[in-house]
């Protein structure tokens, strides 16, 4: 448990992070993070809010450069890539945004077709078939002609998921994929993530809070807290784990290594009482 790299990482890793250090707005986000996302597996990144899980995804896709450290994706060190090389790499990565980020001027169909149209010269009926297949997989084939403004949050998320997988990328990054899904949709999305992984060998990285959902789909879980990988292993390992981090996080306790309270002045003083009466 003290070794941040799990035993599952014997196969060469698709994503390798070494000595990652990041400071954003004067706040230390990562202070020496090492982790491996094994090829063809589903890895989950978990951790308390504000520990930089989304930031980690932005590092992996080159949207944000770290202060120090290496992030190797498919053999390429992301921070040292040129803009064109970065775009070449991103063509092979699917990204599900936390807020879906659908293009509001296009229909659902055109949103999902967008990556296909931009990068491949495919005949129109093939584009149609691919898009409808992906929409069927997320249960929204019937919504193809709707505009994004007509969708609920959960539906928009599933459209964004269809868009992320439309080109069958080698790596899919999911930023909070389970938020806003009802139990039926959640089940289907979990099954979809697993199927993509099993049938196409797609590597997936999930950022999520829901341990119950994660434990059904993930092969490897990394718990990030305090700027470091606090624990890692299979979901079962973590559930059994006895490190204070895992106990607090999975037990949902307010007391522990992760403070529930955002750093603040003394409570009594803030309310105007003399500090000694506390």
């Amino acid at each position, binding site marked *: 448990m003290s070794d941040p790299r799990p035993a599952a990482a014997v196969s060469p890793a698709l994503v390798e992070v070494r000595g990652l250090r990041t400071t954003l707005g004067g706040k230390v986000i990562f202070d020496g993070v090492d982790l491996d996302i094994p090829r063809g597996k589903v890895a989950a990144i978990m951790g308390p809010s504000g520990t930089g899980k989304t930031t980690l995804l932005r590092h992996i896709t080159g949207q944000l450069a770290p202060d120090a450290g290496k992030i190797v994706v498919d053999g390429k060190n992301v921070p040292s890539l040129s*803009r064109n090389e970065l775009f*070449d790499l*991103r063509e092979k990565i699917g*990204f599900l945004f936390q*807020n879906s980020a*659908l293009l*509001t001027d296009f229909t659902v169909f055109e949103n999902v077709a967008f*990556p296909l149209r931009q990068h491949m010269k495919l005949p129109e009926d093939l584009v149609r078939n691919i898009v409808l297949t992906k929409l069927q997989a997320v249960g929204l084939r019937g919504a193809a002609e709707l505009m994004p403004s007509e969708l609920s949050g959960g539906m928009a998320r599933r459209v964004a998921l269809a868009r992320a997988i439309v080109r069958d990328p080698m790596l899919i990054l999911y930023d909070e994929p389970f938020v806003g899904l009802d139990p039926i949709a959640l089940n289907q999305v979990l099954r979809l993530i697993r199927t993509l992984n099993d049938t196409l060998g797609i590597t997936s990285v999930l950022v999520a809070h829901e341990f119950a959902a994660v434990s059904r789909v993930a092969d490897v879980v990394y718990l990030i807290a305090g700027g470091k990988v606090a624990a890692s292993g299979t979901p079962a390992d973590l559930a059994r784990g006895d490190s204070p981090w895992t106990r607090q996080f999975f037990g949902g306790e307010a007391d522990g290594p992760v403070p529930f309270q955002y750093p603040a002045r003394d409570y009594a003083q803030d309310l105007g009482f003399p500090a000694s009466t506390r």
Partner: protein
Amino acid sequence: MSSVLDPKKPTTPAPSRGELSSLGDSIAQVGACALFLLAILAAVPKSLRYIKETIRQIWFTGAMSLVIIMTCGLFVGMVLGLQLYYVLSIFGGTAALGTVVSLSLYRELGPVVTALLFAGRAGTSITAEIGLMRATDQIAAMEMMAVDPMAYVAAPRFIAGVIAMPLLACVFNMLGIFGAHLVGVSWLGLDNGTFWSNMTSSVDVWKDVVNGVWKSCAFGAVVALIAVFQGYTTPPTSEGVAYATTRTVVFSSIVVLALDFVMTAFLM
């Protein structure tokens, strides 16, 4: 600013300062805008792939501005007709009305007033549109789909501004001359033949008409650049977008009028 040019920097720009607080900030903004122009120009070859998007933007910024441009052109021409008829009648020179109206429109009023109207009509909507795309992560989503937003979003709107503005200015001039004719000839009773013949004999295509077209090309570039830049660098908040649209109009107007003076001095 580096955030705009460099994909490795955060895609969300630095938090809003609201208004520009100091001279240093203003200079930094001008420099950032100049760098942004270079980035747009560099993205123009790539944006040729999105020619349909460029055409859509020409339609949106050009064709959709026609009503306001034509209405304003007509009224500006009618006012010019009235005012200049009055002034010229003092010197007994009302026969020169067509000449004076068309020269002032071609050389000055056409390009400048069109640019100011364009900033209000098309510039603000460009800024608000891009600002909202930024706030809802659509720009970041394009980046993640390996579609360069500089080529897909910024460059088409810039090109559309450069193409649409001279066309709009020509329409403005046409309606302006028509308005002056309406007032001068149909209402105040000037001779129709004198109005047109004096105009055609003293307006030079290259010195007057084409110079005006150059001006409006430059104004189109400046207004579109400012609009796209403000939208692209706006903080992703409702207040940020509000400030950005205001700044688009304010900065566009100032720069257009200043540039007009410089260009007039050089094109004289």
